[in-house]
């Protein structure tokens, strides 16, 4: 059984006991424990069940590579599934539950899958759920859904907060083990600005566990010295609990800082995502030990040799009382030695190498440990925990030589450098035959904006696995990084005592000749339940590409992204394909290194600041009046102002009737307003608009259309000429920034010699439309110097002056067909002006109207709306707006395109009005059905509706639309389709439904 040892535990504060619970069971641990070490200290070997077969699983590793130890962590708003116990720091009151089982961890119905293993091989789902097709939706999917997924989805809103942080440095060092510390020192000594990050809470990585001497001192002591030196350097920042999550183009690094995961009671963000720009990146990310592929290598108690050592040394926890060590390299001997020294039993070291190990093997033997060379494990005995191993010859097919009782197995299949961050942005790998691993190819680094490499691997992440090589390589990386950022570092690598290790020998299957019965229980990917047999099957079925095999078998596709399984998996694939491993290659390493929280990606962007919400100066009034808002870009505009108990339709009707019969107010502040000034302003606007703007007289307004170079309409609005060389161009609400940018584009990139300046003054003004037969009376009631009489301010004129006490610019323009003034005042006076109008208009029953009232009234008048009548494929001619296209101008944007034969053709859908025969409202988006069917058997169409409303003024449905033939079809009765399959008949009419002669707006 796993238990807490009396000695050891260098990371623990045994003076502080912490309480926590697992599946409701109350446990205790110490400050400094990981959740994994604390569970093991309480003999909780089994932590969850596997994804596919629901096999019992316990921890297999001690760090971020852990595939099995996943739990549901926390409760309520702090609940999160799939949290790795190995990277979760224990805190007082932690609660967690195991995943992927029903009804309980100990007794699980899904485990029946385990007995059906041979019936669920790779590609099972692809092959099985093909036919009959209807069964997918009604039979297969519900069953698969029931059993799919790791963990539970959170039910409550995330109670935590998250944030981003932008940082700029010269050198980022990822990994705070001895390599990262040494590299940071070498780089930092040059004066370069260095940011060193380490994903765990501790500096030094695993060197203190593995031991050795540096600079004549025990390595742990040397590390303490390094940390102190770095902390004293002003130009070096050290952050632990911060993972290098991803490396991206041009020196962009994501650092994932877990600020309060270990102190959930603290205020402040839970995670902080650092968005870092750096000139150089040193990846001192270490190496990960590989499992060995033997039958039963997933039974709780089979643990990586390095992890067994970590638990003993770092946390004072033994995985078992009797631990069999099985290895293909010398490093695992350190585990046997550590366990023996801790007073635990190591019945045997099974070394798959016929020639055995080096000096560490001698040391083990000297401690009295039995060492068997050329031997391996045929299978592990046990179910929910290890009870023993069957020993066999590695060279054979698994015949039992003896059975050894034990409760833990420490395995080591060699070490793979963590090349993820090197590879994220295109760093290439080479295969190292001696270590049987891929390591960075220093000659092919990821390249930055200057065409030079910007990532330097350091330490065991670069291949060296022995301490001396690691420290020397890391120091060189630090010096190289300093040089690359234009600094000099003269730091020399310290002397390191060399160990005489024997070469490792690759072992991809144990025993080498294991038959199908063993292979089907030899796990490659623990989290996704992929076995040696699955990868072999994939190869047999023709999957030669490692990327295809990955997807077919799901190898490496789980939340651990195959950190333990990838090399073993592709070696198995290579073996089956009879191809060299480097030829098979690796799958792509993509960020993030381990999953990061969705919250950290969103950062602050949630709730009130999820998106910017633009408010007009009058917004507070709309809110107070309980307006029903609709989004228009990032603006919120009142759609209508319903009174208590009133439907939106009734509110719109009331607002329109009031406006048409007396007076209404519209908050039009969102309309774009762009100042265009300069000697060439007129010439410029003649190019921007289809109509002639240069002839407009100061004091006058003109409605204009804008097209892009494709000839299609992009915006419209009223242009006012302020003085000889100044114009004010109104744009649509959504068009303000876009059209301003469009103008600047042409001025900066095409006609840069034209003397024109623009300024977007949209938000300088609150603009209020005072609309209706009583509009003039309301304005006149406010007093002030401005003459707004018919003669004083005629239709399509504008004027500056005081209205009441307000600094106003009034435009006599109308988008409703009524007598209308659009009055702009400085935004800071907007609310006061609105209130003054409301007060002055009270005797006329004045009320605000919303965007829907605006839309209906403009449709009654047959005015087009950009985005309704236009969709990016409509030219002004389609809308019968030839009157707005200057024939005198040689050129304007879109003119050439409008001359193309298809554009000039009569054979286009053109605008007309529609009135339903029965008075009903044509559905939004309806098409006008034609005769016959197209090649796909769909009914032909001959047009579509673009605006369709109930008109309170006419008390019937009105519509505009595009129809083949346009106004030539006047009087025709056509049919619009409806969602229910029926159609509605409508007569083609003039799109101006109301006040065709425009008398009302001109009074």
């Amino acid at each position, binding site marked *: 059984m796993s238990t807490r040892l009396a000695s050891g535990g260098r990371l623990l504060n045994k003076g502080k006991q912490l309480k926590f619970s697992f599946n409701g069971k109350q446990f205790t641990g110490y400050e400094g424990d990981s959740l994994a070490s604390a569970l093991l200290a309480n003999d909780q070997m089994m932590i969850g069940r596997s994804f596919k077969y629901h096999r019992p699983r316990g921890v297999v590793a001690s760090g971020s590579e852990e595939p099995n130890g996943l739990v549901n962590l926390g409760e309520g708003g702090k609940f999160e599934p799939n949290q790795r116990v190995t990277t979760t720091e224990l805190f007082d009151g932690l609660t967690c539950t195991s995943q992927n089982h029903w009804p309980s961890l100990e007794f699980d119905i899904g485990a029946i899958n385990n007995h059906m293993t041979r019936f669920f091989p790779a590609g099972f789902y692809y092959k099985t759920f093909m036919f009959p097709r209807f069964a997918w939706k009604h039979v297969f999917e519900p069953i698969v859904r029931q059993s799919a997924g790791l963990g539970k989805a959170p039910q409550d809103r995330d109670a935590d907060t998250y944030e981003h942080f932008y940082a700029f440095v010269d050198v980022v060092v990822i990994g705070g083990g001895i390599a990262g510390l040494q590299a940071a020192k070498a780089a930092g000594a040059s004066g370069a600005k260095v940011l060193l990050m380490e994903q765990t809470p501790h500096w030094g990585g695993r060197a203190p566990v593995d031991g050795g001497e540096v600079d004549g001192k025990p390595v742990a002591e040397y590390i303490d010295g390094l940390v102190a030196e770095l902390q004293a350097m002003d130009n070096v920042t050290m952050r632990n609990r911060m993972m290098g999550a991803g490396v991206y183009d041009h020196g*962009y690094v994501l650092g994932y800082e877990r600020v309060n995961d270990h102190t959930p009671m603290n205020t402040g963000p839970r995670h902080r995502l650092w968005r870092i720009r750096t000139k150089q990146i040193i990846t001192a990310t270490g190496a990960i030990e590989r499992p060995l592929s033997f039958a039963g290598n997933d039974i709780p108690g089979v643990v990586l040799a390095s992890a067994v050592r970590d638990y003993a040394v770092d946390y004072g926890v033994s995985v078992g009382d009797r631990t069999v060590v099985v290895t293909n390299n010398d490093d695992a001997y350190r585990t046997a030695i550590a366990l023996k020294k801790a007073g635990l039993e190591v019945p045997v070291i099974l070394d798959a190498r016929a020639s055995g190990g080096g000096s560490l093997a001698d040391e083990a033997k000297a401690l009295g440990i039995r060492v068997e060379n050329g031997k391996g494990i045929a299978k592990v005995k046990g179910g929910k925990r290890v009870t023993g191993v069957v020993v066999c010859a590695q060279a054979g097919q698994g015949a039992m030589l003896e059975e050894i009782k034990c409760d833990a197995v420490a395995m080591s299949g060699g070490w793979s450098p963590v090349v993820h961050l090197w590879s994220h942005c295109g760093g290439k790998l080479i295969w190292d035959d001696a270590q049987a691993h891929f390591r960075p190819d220093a000659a092919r680094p990821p390249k930055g904006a200057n065409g030079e490499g910007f990532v330097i691997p350091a330490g065991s992440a670069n291949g060296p696995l022995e301490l001396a090589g690691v420290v020397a390589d890391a120091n060189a990386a630090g010096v190289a990084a300093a040089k690359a950022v234009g600094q000099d570092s003269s730091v020399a690598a310290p002397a390191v005592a060399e160990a005489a290790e024997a070469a490792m020998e690759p072992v991809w299957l144990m025993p080498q000749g294991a038959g199908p019965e063993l292979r089907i229980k030899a796990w490659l990917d623990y989290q996704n339940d992929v076995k040696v047999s699955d990868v072999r099957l994939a190869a047999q079925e023709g999957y030669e590409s490692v990327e295809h095999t990955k997807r077919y078998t799901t190898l490496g596709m789980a939340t651990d992204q195959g950190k333990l399984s990838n090399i073993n998996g592709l070696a198995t694939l290579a073996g089956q394909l009879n191809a060299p491993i480097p030829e098979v290659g690796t799958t792509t390493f993509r960020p993030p290194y381990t999953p990061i929280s969705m919250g950290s990606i969103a950062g602050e962007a949630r709730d009130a600041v999820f998106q910017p919400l633009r408010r007009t100066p009058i917004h507070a009034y709309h809110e107070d009046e309980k307006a029903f808002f609709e989004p228009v870009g990032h603006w919120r505009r009142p759609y209508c102002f319903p009174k208590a108990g009133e439907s939106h339709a009734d509110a719109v009707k009331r607002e329109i009737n009031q406006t048409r019969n007396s007076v209404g107010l519209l908050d039009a502040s969102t309309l774009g307003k762009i100042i265009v000034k300069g000697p060439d302003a007129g010439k410029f606007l003649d190019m921007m608009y289809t109509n002639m703007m240069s002839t407009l007289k100061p004091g006058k307004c003109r409605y204009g259309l804008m097209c892009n170079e494709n000839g299609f309409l992009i915006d419209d609005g009223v242009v006012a000429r302020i003085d000889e060389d100044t114009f004010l161009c109104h744009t649509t609400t959504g068009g303000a920034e876009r059209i301003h940018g469009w103008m600047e584009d042409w001025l*900066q990139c095409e006609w840069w010699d034209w003397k024109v300046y623009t300024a977007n003054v949209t938000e300088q003004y609150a603009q209020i439309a005072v609309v209706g037969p009583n509009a003039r009376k309301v304005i006149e009631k406010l007093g002030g110097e401005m003459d707004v009489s018919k003669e004083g301010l005629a239709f399509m004129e504008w004027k500056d002056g005081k209205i009441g006490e307000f600094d106003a610019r009034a435009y006599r323009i109308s988008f409703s067909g009524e007598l209308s003034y659009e009055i702009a005042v400085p935004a800071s006076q907007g609310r006061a002006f609105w209130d003054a109008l409301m007060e002055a208009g009270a005797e006329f029953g004045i009320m605000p109207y919303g965007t829907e009232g605006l839309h209906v009234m403009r449709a009654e008048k047959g005015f087009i709306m950009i985005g309704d009548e236009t969709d990016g494929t409509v030219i002004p001619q389609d809308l019968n707006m030839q009157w707005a296209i200057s024939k005198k101008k040689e*050129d304007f944007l879109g003119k050439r395109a409008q001359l193309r034969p298809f554009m000039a053709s009569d054979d286009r859908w053109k605008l007309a009005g529609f009135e339903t025969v029965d008075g009903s409202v044509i559905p939004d988006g309806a098409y006008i059905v034609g005769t016959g069917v197209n090649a796909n058997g769909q009914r032909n169409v001959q047009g579509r509706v673009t605006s369709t409303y109930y008109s309170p003024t006419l008390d019937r449905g009105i519509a505009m639309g595009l129809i083949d033939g346009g106004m030539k079809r006047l009087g025709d009765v056509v049919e619009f389709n409806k969602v229910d399959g029926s159609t509605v008949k409508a007569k083609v009419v003039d799109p101006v439904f109301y006040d065709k002669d425009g008398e009302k707006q001109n009074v």
Partner: protein
Amino acid sequence: MLTLQCPYCGVEAEETELHAEGEAHLKRFGPGSSDDDFEGYLFMRENPKGVHFERWRHSNGCGKFFHAARCTMTLEVFGTYSAQTLEPPQEIKDKISAKYPGWTWREFA
């Protein structure tokens, strides 16, 4: 995520401050141009794997449009330069030639 130096305000701007504005050095054809010329202007765009010239705008910054010469494959940036020019500066062309001898892009080489 790219960084490009705005030649107008000098900021080393990351992509979130910038807006991509399509291909550089397009020659406008207006009324009176042939259908072929107009089609080329309106629709035909380079899509190279390698040296490319683009327009960008420092939209969350000084607001200016500028040109950038870069490699679409390696993301190496050869330089950024004024929008008020009809061709890349010689200095940038030289820099590209040093890296990719014999490169061509539309009429430039």
